[in-house]
């Protein structure tokens, strides 16, 4: 069967619509956090759904959400590559060795027992969005999308151990930023 005919199959389109469209808000949310730009996020999600429909015939699981996210992440990485090649756009991917630094180098003076201030959604959102990659990605998949460690590992293509250390680091960084926010002049 020609490829075009396969993609024009209304029955397949119906199944795809039922399976994938309920995750549109999830996909858009992830794209916003990964790309930190509304227009780029829209483009990435649209491209993600096009690719997902193309590969839907071969989809046998895992769950739909991580499957879509893995595709979306690839689209977003292509966008990173494009930005990196454009001289004006900054890239915020941390160098490899940043991931190797032991956790306790982050905030040696952080008081352990200090109560955390209850920030509003806008502030929390800003602090999360300010996290560096790849920690932001792992953090968002866990805390906002409620993926299991195994699912996150599949989406980002890293071992579960890496997911765990990235998550620990993401939370350590967020907690430092969370406390530093209180020191800022209002």
């Amino acid at each position, binding site marked *: 069967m020609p490829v075009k005919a396969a993609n024009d199959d209304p029955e397949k389109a119906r199944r795809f619509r039922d*399976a994938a469209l309920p995750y549109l808000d999830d996909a*858009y949310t992830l794209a916003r956090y990964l790309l930190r730009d509304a227009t780029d996020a*829209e483009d990435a999600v649209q491209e993600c759904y096009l690719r997902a429909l193309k590969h839907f015939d071969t*989809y046998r699981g895992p*769950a739909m959400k991580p499957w879509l996210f893995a595709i979306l992440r690839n689209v977003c990485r292509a966008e990173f590559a494009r930005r990196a090649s454009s001289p004006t756009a900054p890239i915020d991917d941390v160098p490899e060795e940043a991931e190797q630094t032991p*956790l306790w180098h982050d905030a040696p003076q952080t008081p352990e027992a200090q109560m955390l201030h209850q920030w509003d959604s806008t502030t929390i959102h800003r602090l999360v969005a300010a996290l560096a990659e790849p920690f932001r990605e792992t953090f968002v998949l866990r805390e906002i999308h409620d993926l299991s*460690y195994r699912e996150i590992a599949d989406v980002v293509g890293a071992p579960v151990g890496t997911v765990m250390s990235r998550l*620990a680091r993401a939370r350590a960084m967020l907690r430092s930023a969370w406390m530093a926010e209180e020191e800022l002049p209002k």
Partner: protein
Amino acid sequence: MTCDESEILLHALIDDELDAGNTRAVEEHVAGCPRCAAQLQSYRAMSKMIAGADLRYRAPLGLRQRIEASLPQPTQAPSRRAVLRGFAMGSAVSAIAATGLVAIVLRSDDEARIQSEVVSAHLRSLQAGHLTDVISTDQHTVKPWFNGKLDVAPPVVDLTAQGFTLIGGRLDYVDARPIGAIVYRRRAHVINLFVAQTASTERRAAKIETLQGFNIRRWSERGLNYWAVSDLAADELAEFGEKFEAAMRSGTTG
């Protein structure tokens, strides 16, 4: 366990990702280490505040429309081709009629169609505001709600103590007939348990299948067909089904 190890593993503890042995190891370490205990408490508080914050985006309507438009449009009536396929099928069926094979073929065909409808019903239920018609964690509220709406009384079992929270019930349509859906939650995962009457009273052992990335646990007992649908992992959905069947046998339905 050292503090360095605990610093990583306490996050897995917060996320409920540790097995029993590691859970105990981390808890033992934390019990004897004020610094790690303070950290655990602090991270727990932070996770709770993050869970309570609104950090999600809604996809713009324009994006939704562009994606919809890029999909092949569904046909309302069965297409000419599908009708022709039906005829072809018909003659194939008459060719092998009365061999007994037909009934089996059609039955499993039916089964697959109903299963796909059950998954669609599950997906519909996940859209905002569609999950429950009656919201209650009390089985004695959910069960009577179905009275008069269905020709069977679906059993409603409270499995909260077993880790599956009853959140309500809903009337749904599968196979063009009303069907009862009992809704449970495990962490952020929704489980729809669809219950329908069947003519056969024979018991059918549970079978787990995957369709469109959802796990379906299907079984029959005492004249009722059950489909539990969720994005939960297969082993957790199996656990749900086993707990439900065990509760049914011990007669703790509402």
